């Protein structure tokens, strides 16, 4: 009956001593020192001794932060080593997260100095591109948060994306209205979510199985209708209007942050607002308390009168709404037309963001932004012809998640009843 997250066999593997020398902080420190050495020595020696320019304005010639690439790579690497060293030496616990973040950020800077040396990296474009690529990941991961905090595993995010993207393209084109498209994207997500809910909650089918099969079902149905309807007559069925970009006067004039956050489409604001709303909802409202109770210990929740199945149905369907809106990104924001299997694994990166973000809204936001940045960087590097293959950067979300669940850098733990169907006895 153990639905315990990533620690199902922990008691079967050797037990971990509570205060041995290589505790979590020292392991983190050692890891930072190692990557810091890689940064300072390898990135430093490979980097050209030329100016790396990080432009703040939209054009290449305008204001920029510049640094000698080689010097920067080495300097930032040394900072990473220092952060790791501080962790190894044993600083107070409250500095741990700050030092870890500092170490990782400086490692990324060192990498950037190496890659950008002799070239320029437009900061505004990178930031807004990262946010845009992170957009479906944020929404997908939030959908996962809603489902999984109430105890239903959601592997069907990919399928919800696909149905959402397809619905948005089809109805958006037929109604020539981007808002109709957005609404039908939500409907598409809810269709898959309701199948997930009924099969998992009512019929007690293994939730991972349902999720995987629903992904294939969505892939099949959207692919089938795409080939039957959209491919022969794209103009009639597959040319939806794009979501307009809105500019908030005043705020949009702030350098870097302005164009990224205040000159963008509605979906971005919706996603960012939802992060806050869901966070507050989970931690501050009656609904949130009940959701968490149902996800951790459904029997106890039932005993005090919470309707376990009803709440799970509601949360899975809400998740479908959010993931469907995420699907709209692919057709209404990104490309402007549906294509077969166009999400290409984004649903699974969203799942990775959910896990990497420890099943919390803000964690999911951070992970999604990080993964979005990695994707954007991969695009940039392949555009400037970097020797670092972009496939390896695209692997980053997956490998980071494996490291996180393996507990090599702090363990992540799922809600206790995640994936365990509730049967009233």
């Amino acid at each position, binding site marked *: 009956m153990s639905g315990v997250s990533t620690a199902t*066999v922990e008691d079967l593997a050797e037990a971990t001593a509570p205060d041995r020398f290589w505790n979590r902080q020292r392991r983190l420190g050692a890891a930072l020192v190692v990557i810091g050495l890689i940064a300072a020595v390898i990135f430093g020696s490979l980097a050209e001794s030329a100016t790396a320019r990080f432009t703040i304005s939209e054009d290449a010639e305008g204001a920029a932060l510049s640094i000698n690439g080689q010097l920067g790579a080495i300097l930032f690497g040394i900072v990473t080593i220092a952060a790791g060293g501080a962790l190894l030496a044993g600083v107070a616990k409250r500095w741990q997260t700050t030092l870890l973040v500092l170490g990782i950020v400086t490692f990324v800077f060192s990498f950037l100095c190496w890659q950008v040396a002799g070239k320029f990296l437009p900061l505004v474009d990178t930031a807004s591109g990262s946010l845009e690529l992170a957009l479906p990941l944020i929404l997908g991961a939030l959908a996962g948060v809603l489902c999984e905090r109430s105890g239903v595993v959601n592997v069907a995010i990919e399928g919800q994306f696909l149905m959402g993207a397809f619905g948005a393209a089809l109805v958006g084109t037929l109604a020539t209205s981007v808002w109709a498209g957005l609404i039908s994207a939500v409907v598409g997500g809810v269709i898959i979510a309701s199948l997930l809910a009924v099969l998992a909650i009512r019929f007690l089918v293994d939730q991972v199985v349902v999720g*995987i099969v629903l992904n294939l079902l969505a892939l099949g149905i959207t692919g*089938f209708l795409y080939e*039957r309807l959209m491919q022969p007559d794209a103009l009639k069925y597959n040319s939806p209007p794009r979501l307009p970009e809105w500019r908030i006067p005043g705020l949009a004039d702030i350098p870097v942050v302005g164009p990224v956050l205040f000159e963008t489409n509605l979906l971005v604001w919706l996603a960012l607002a939802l992060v806050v709303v869901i966070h507050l909802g989970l931690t501050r409202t009656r609904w949130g308390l009940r959701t968490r109770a149902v996800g951790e210990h459904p029997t106890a929740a039932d005993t005090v009168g919470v309707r376990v199945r009803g709440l799970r149905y509601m949360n899975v369907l809400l998740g479908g709404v959010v993931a469907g809106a995420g699907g709209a990104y692919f057709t209404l924001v990104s490309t402007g037309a549906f294509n077969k299997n166009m999400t290409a694994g984004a649903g699974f990166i969203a799942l990775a963001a959910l896990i990497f973000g420890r099943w919390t809204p803000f964690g999911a936001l951070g992970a999604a932004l990080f993964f979005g940045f990695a994707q954007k960087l991969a695009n940039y590097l392949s555009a400037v012809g970097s020797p670092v293959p972009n496939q390896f950067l695209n692997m980053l979300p997956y490998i980071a998640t*494996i490291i996180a669940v393996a*507990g090599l850098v702090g363990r992540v733990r799922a809600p206790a009843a995640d994936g*365990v*169907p509730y049967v009233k006895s």
Partner: protein
Amino acid sequence: MTTEAPEKKAEPKKEESFLGVFLHNLWSANTVVVTILSILLALVIGAVLIVVSDSDVLATFSYFTARPSDALTASWDLISHAYADLFKGAIFDPAAVQAWFSGSGDWKTVFNPLSETLTYAAPLVFTGLAVALAFRGGLFNIGAQGQAVIGCVTAGVAGFAIGLPPVLHLIVALLFGVIGGALWGFVPGLLKARTGAHEVITTIMLNYTATLFLGWLILQSGVQDPNRTDAVSKTIDSTAGLPALPAPLRVHLGIVLAVLATAGVAWLINRSSFGFELRAVGVNPPAAKTAGMSVARTYIMLMVVAGGLAGLGGAVQVLGTADRLTGQVAGNIGFDGLLVALLGRNKPWGVLFAAMLYGGLRAGGNLMQVDVGVSLELVTVLQALIVIFIAAPALVKSIFQLRDARTARLGASMAKGW
């Protein structure tokens, strides 16, 4: 732990005729009936999709109340044509048989549908076994896709990078496939055993890592075909190819290997001491530990063997059917293997038959696409629907008002979290 149907026991046993037993079982929710009805339900939903997506037929529905016969005949023609093609493409085409008997046809044309079915089925048997075997040991191996991709890579590279005499080269390439897949299975197995990282999460992540790795590898010099600019590897040496039947027929030795692998896995699960251990661990890990088995070691071994099987499936795909690496060389065989394992109820011979069914759907789907223009994607829909109904027997039971089976073993029994 969550069997749907309540056990009905202690009914007075009386001698019944064979016919009585047969009739009683005919409409009760046992494995065979649920499987057949699941396939039927999937075909019905598929038919609706075919009609809904055809604008000509839909046009006849606009005056349905005036002349319903138009709409009904048009729909029936389309559906029966599509499903007849599915059969003709998968098993045999009566016209070709007639032509053969009258002397105007060729025996190869007659056997071509079967050959296609077996060609598509062969890799699915391996990936299906990889999932089913891990299931029996309590692990959910979603990573068959990634393991098959790595198997494709290692077998493919061995196929064109090493020069060896004919039979030996094939064996070495197949072994490389097994080793590649086993390595890719070893990682989640080790993580599960040592750190408790859930195998569903790690294998999902490793699937995409494998695909990206393949995408990178085929662009490297030494692997990429020097005469091509797109992502295509060199062609595999003929010495490493799986022997196949003469030209238009594509079926190759892989299907024979698949049957052998099925027998091997059946022996492994049911007769070997490792099989006993893995079943014990699958049912109740703490009890297995108490009985002196090493749960951690069993998990690792299980994932290595499962990964090896999936890797062999990838090797069979690349050495038998594809003959070179491309980004899509493994297709969807890992995820389809998951469906095959579920349809085959995690039993080796069940997996074999399920793979044949899926191979047949795929082969027939090709003809359906060419002949009536019904997209091959319909097959994906059918495959997914069949498994949804299989996995939710209570749903099928309530749709058809089936009786409870005598042996109520059909519950959705594998529900557990991560």
